[in-house]
């Protein structure tokens, strides 16, 4: 009987060892989730290892993965990590039944590897290694305890099962609780609600009389944040709280600088009205909008860190790895260039880059307006190609002088008589000086412009038309402050923005 039992035990030893390893690993991960929840950062071991792996994955492999798995690529990666950990844990458990010390060292190593991974992440803070280190300690203690239960004694089997089940339950409980706490702590909506916007030391002037023409159908001067165009590559809106946010300014600088959100708020806060435009906007399109931006001037910050005279490109990186390159000269030439935290008096919406984005007047967004901004590197155009440049778009892209007819709408039917033809025109950082309209290719007519507020903003325009019945083609063109008229030459958005005179067919009854 005893003999048989011993033999049985020897046969089952690898199975028990593997199971001990698995349960211990599960508990270690569960407790680490709890620790991550306690410190309020998304730095559970699997997350940091996954993130570090993606940081190091070659581009072709990333593209292959996205092609194969689409939006599920992250789930696939995390599942892969869990399976790998499970296999390693099982092997370590088996080894530990024979060579206890080696097994326990292996368990500790898994946690230490995760801690190392955490330390390499772009948003790293020293406290981020805590969950992984906790996991290492739990793994060692848990495994040692389970091994001691099975080591000796008559009812070893029963105790081992009880102990294993107990740890499995604890793993489940800590994992779920930790995950929930993290969800609460990394709640962007709550972070946004809690943000008290500082008063600007330099408020923007209120709009002068005549800045809005109040013609029905014309785009409102300020665009509502919810209506503001959104163009980005984020599959899901990145979640970043003010507590987690950090901005590192480095590269070709005298002294590297890292700012927390409180550091940012402690700087002089300014306010600027700026019209933004997307390079993908087609002639007559809607990817343009205006907001009152609240934030911190970028130029003084760059002067503080000391920009190397040879650096000509400022590369912004978002928390999800998007890169955007801006000419250093543009940021330093005195124009409005902001680290923005609010638009139209509200903290940025998550989809517009909460908690901090870049806004630079006069440049298309793809070369200036990094959202969820966490990293600014002073670099060179000949040293680094950001995301869109790698896809063939131009390195530098100032916004082209453009004009748009908002009313009457294309193919609409209007009553003969006096009709207000009206819209907007923009040439940021140069300003609009003139807008002209013509009907059916006839002579150009001068439109009346709204009062100019600053040269970073669009202007509204209106032209009163004595419309005869029939179908008619309206065309519009604008001139910037130098008097240069926008080009008639048609260009597609690729590779540096669309151009051409918009024409709209309407029917007058």
């Amino acid at each position: 009987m005893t003999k048989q039992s011993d033999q049985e035990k020897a046969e089952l030893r690898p199975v028990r060892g593997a199971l001990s390893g698995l349960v211990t690993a599960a508990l270690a991960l569960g407790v680490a989730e709890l620790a991550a929840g306690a410190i309020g950062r998304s730095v559970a071991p699997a997350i940091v290892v996954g993130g570090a792996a993606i940081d190091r994955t070659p581009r072709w492999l990333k593209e292959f993965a996205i092609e194969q798995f689409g939006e599920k690529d992250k789930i696939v990666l995390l599942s892969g990590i869990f399976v790998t950990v499970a296999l390693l844990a099982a092997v370590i458990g088996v080894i530990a039944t024979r060579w206890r010390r080696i097994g326990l060292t292996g368990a500790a190593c898994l946690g230490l590897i995760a801690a190392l991974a955490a330390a390499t992440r772009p948003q790293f803070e020293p406290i981020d290694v805590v969950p992984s280190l906790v996991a290492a300690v739990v793994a060692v203690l848990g495994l040692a305890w389970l091994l001691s239960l099975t080591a000796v004694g008559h009812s070893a089997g029963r105790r081992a099962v009880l102990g294993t089940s107990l740890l499995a339950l604890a793993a489940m409980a800590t994992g779920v609780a930790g995950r929930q706490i993290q969800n609460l702590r990394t709640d962007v909506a709550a972070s946004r609600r809690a943000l008290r916007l500082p008063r600007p030391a330099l408020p923007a002037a209120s709009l002068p009389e005549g800045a809005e023409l109040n013609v029905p159908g014309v785009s409102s001067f300020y665009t509502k944040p919810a209506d503001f165009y959104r163009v980005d590559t984020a599959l899901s809106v990145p979640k970043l709280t003010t507590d987690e946010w950090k901005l590192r300014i480095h590269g070709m600088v005298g002294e590297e600088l890292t700012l927390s959100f409180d550091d940012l708020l402690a700087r002089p806060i300014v306010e600027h009205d700026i019209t933004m435009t997307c390079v993908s906007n087609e002639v007559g399109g809607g990817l343009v909008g205006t907001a009152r931006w609240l934030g911190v001037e970028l130029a003084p910050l760059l002067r503080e860190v000391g920009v190397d005279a040879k650096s000509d490109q400022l590369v912004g990186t978002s928390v999800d790895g998007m890169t955007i390159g801006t000419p250093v000269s543009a940021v330093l030439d005195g124009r409005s260039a902001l680290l923005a935290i609010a638009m139209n008096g509200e903290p940025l919406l998550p989809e517009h880059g909460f908690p901090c984005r870049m806004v630079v007047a006069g440049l298309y967004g793809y070369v200036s307006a990094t959202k969820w901004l966490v990293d600014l590197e002073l670099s060179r155009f000949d040293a680094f190609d950001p995301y869109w440049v790698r896809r063939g778009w131009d390195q530098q892209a100032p916004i082209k002088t453009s004009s748009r007819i908002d009313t009457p709408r294309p193919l609409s039917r209007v009553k003969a008589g006096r009709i207000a033809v009206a819209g907007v025109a923009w040439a940021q950082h140069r300003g609009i000086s003139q807008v002209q309209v013509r009907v059916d290719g006839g002579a150009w007519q001068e439109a009346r412009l709204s009062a100019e507020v600053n040269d970073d903003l669009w202007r509204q325009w209106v032209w009163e038309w004595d419309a005869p019945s029939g179908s008619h083609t309206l065309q519009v063109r604008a001139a910037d402050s130098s008097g240069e008229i926008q080009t008639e030459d048609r260009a597609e958005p690729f590779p540096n923005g669309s151009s051409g005179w918009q024409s709209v067919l309407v029917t007058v009854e």
Partner: protein
Amino acid sequence: MNTSIRRILVAGVALSTTIGLAACGSDSESDTASEPMDTSMAATPSTAGESMDSSGGAMTGLVGSGCAAYAEANPDGAGSVEGMSADPVATAASNNPMLKTLTMAVSGELNKKVNLVDTLNGGEFTVFAPVDDAFAEVPAKTIDTLKKDDKLLTQILTYHVVAGELSPDQVAGEQTTVEGGTVDVTGSGDDLKVNGANVVCGGVKTANATVYLIDQVLMPADAK
């Protein structure tokens, strides 16, 4: 021996449940980690919303016997059903290999006085788009007339456009075109007809308009 195995199995089930939970719990948070998801979007910075919409649903809701063949001949790229959904309608049509003549007609290439590209891109419309084979049946003399008569060309082209986007289950019935005349859409499902022209493939979404490819050029009753 049996009891031992059973105990191990019980513990194993408890364990796998734990790991399962951990994996499920993690994916909801995974986008917090810095992950360069920067390669999966279209090759142009088009609006995220539009591209996201198109990624799943572009192929659903299509009607017409020619849809499958079209999708097979144009599996990807700007001229595919999914690619067209990211561009405004005139741009989308220009990428469609079956709409070469229509594209010429609306972009000033047939008659330089008629350029409806901005107009068609600038609102929400339903467009009945005659395919190249349909234009091939129009007498050469008529085409020559259209090259000179910009009013007539405009009238014919706008007769193919209805204000507002009509999905396949909304399109049937008498529809007033932006030209002013009406078109009669009859039938249902894969057998839709527009004034007697067959819908080859309909319900194709572009960024601002819903397109029905048809096999005849429609003529307004008062066209002269």
